[in-house]
């Protein structure tokens, strides 16, 4: 991940990792057994974590010092709101 972020740039690393995470999560619908399920979950988690770290780095890169902390906190709040909404949505589904 470090090499991907450093050598290829933030945008390519972000695009590749988020696309891979999406495809791997989509592969869970195959119901191909528990081992496959665990492996895909493991890989999807790695790719999602890579995307999260990359967008975190990118957010810190693009904003000036005066609003950098505000921007990072704002996107963290956004992520928590989405998590709350997603959890409540799954609870009520």
């Amino acid at each position, binding site marked *: *991940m*470090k090499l991907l*972020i*450093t050598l290829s740039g933030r945008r390519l690393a*972000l695009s590749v990792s*988020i696309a891979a*995470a*999406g495809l791997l*999560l989509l592969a*869970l619908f195959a119901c191909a057994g*528990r081992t496959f*399920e*665990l492996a895909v*979950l493991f890989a*999807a*988690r790695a790719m*999602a*974590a890579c*995307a*999260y*770290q990359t*967008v*975190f*780095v*990118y*957010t*810190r*890169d*693009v*904003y*000036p010092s*005066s*609003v*950098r*902390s*505000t*921007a*990072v*906190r*704002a*996107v*963290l*709040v*956004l*992520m*928590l*709101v*989405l*998590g*709350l909404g*997603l*959890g*409540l949505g*799954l*609870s*009520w*589904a």
Partner: protein
Amino acid sequence: MLRWPSMLSAFRPRSAFPCTTLVIVLLWVYGFVVPHLLSFVCLHLRLNMEPWSCRHGWPVVSLSYGFALGAVLQTLCAVVVLHLSTWRWLVALTSLLSLAPLLFSSCLPESPRFHAAAGDTPSARASLASIAASNGVRVPRAARPRRVLEMVFAAGGETEELERKARTKARAMQERLGSFRDLFRAPLSRFSWPLLVVWVGVSVAYLWQLFLASALLSSERLSETCVSAADADPITIPAVGAWISPQECSGISQRVVTEVFMFVAVVDDFVSRGGARWCVHHQVAAVAARCLLVWWVDRGEIAAMRWLSFPVSS
């Protein structure tokens, strides 16, 4: 077909109601403390004290490696302790790690950015000097904050007029410090709106795989994922899983409750702009909460913790 438990199921009446309520309250406290620790320590230290040259590369991914290593150590610790004793000892032992920030917080300087934003210029200077001394360099001239009044007086002029100008300038400087509205004004808006869309996509993917893991690996499969002890007590495993990694191993209801408190914690951080040492107080509260839980459950109220299991039927 997966059946997702409702968040309100955590509050349904039980025979041992006082203990259940206590466990819920303690889990809320824990869910409130951990985000504060992550938010204050990691975010403030990384944003305020990392030199520009260190904001990329290994320091960026070190946090992820730390989390991964911590998860492995927790799992190994759980396997060893659960083999020898009960989960109460595991909770008690891991609680001791919460004291580490308390011991090492005195070695950390407070954020100079926080002092400057709070108007405490002498403390900001002292913090900068402390950081520079630890790096073996002098504080750069551009990083030495001066009082606004001193700067205006240095320019010369009448006293009353200068004081009025100083107050106006101080107010303007305070307003320029990280306003949320600035993110959506030109020229930053051209970054903010696309980045907002990207963050939504990344957040949904990240959270979705967490929820999927929580659902697909729950019940008897949770044991293999979290503590590698499939034959352990069915009461023990969910409880341990909830305390080892409440973000990832617990049920949907606990995760939602934790998200609520993470939201409150980050909003509080967002609004109050407190110092990094806040985490010490919350860590002490977490230790007290864990010790209280261990003491209470040790009195024979384990049966009341069955609500932690949240079985997912298929």
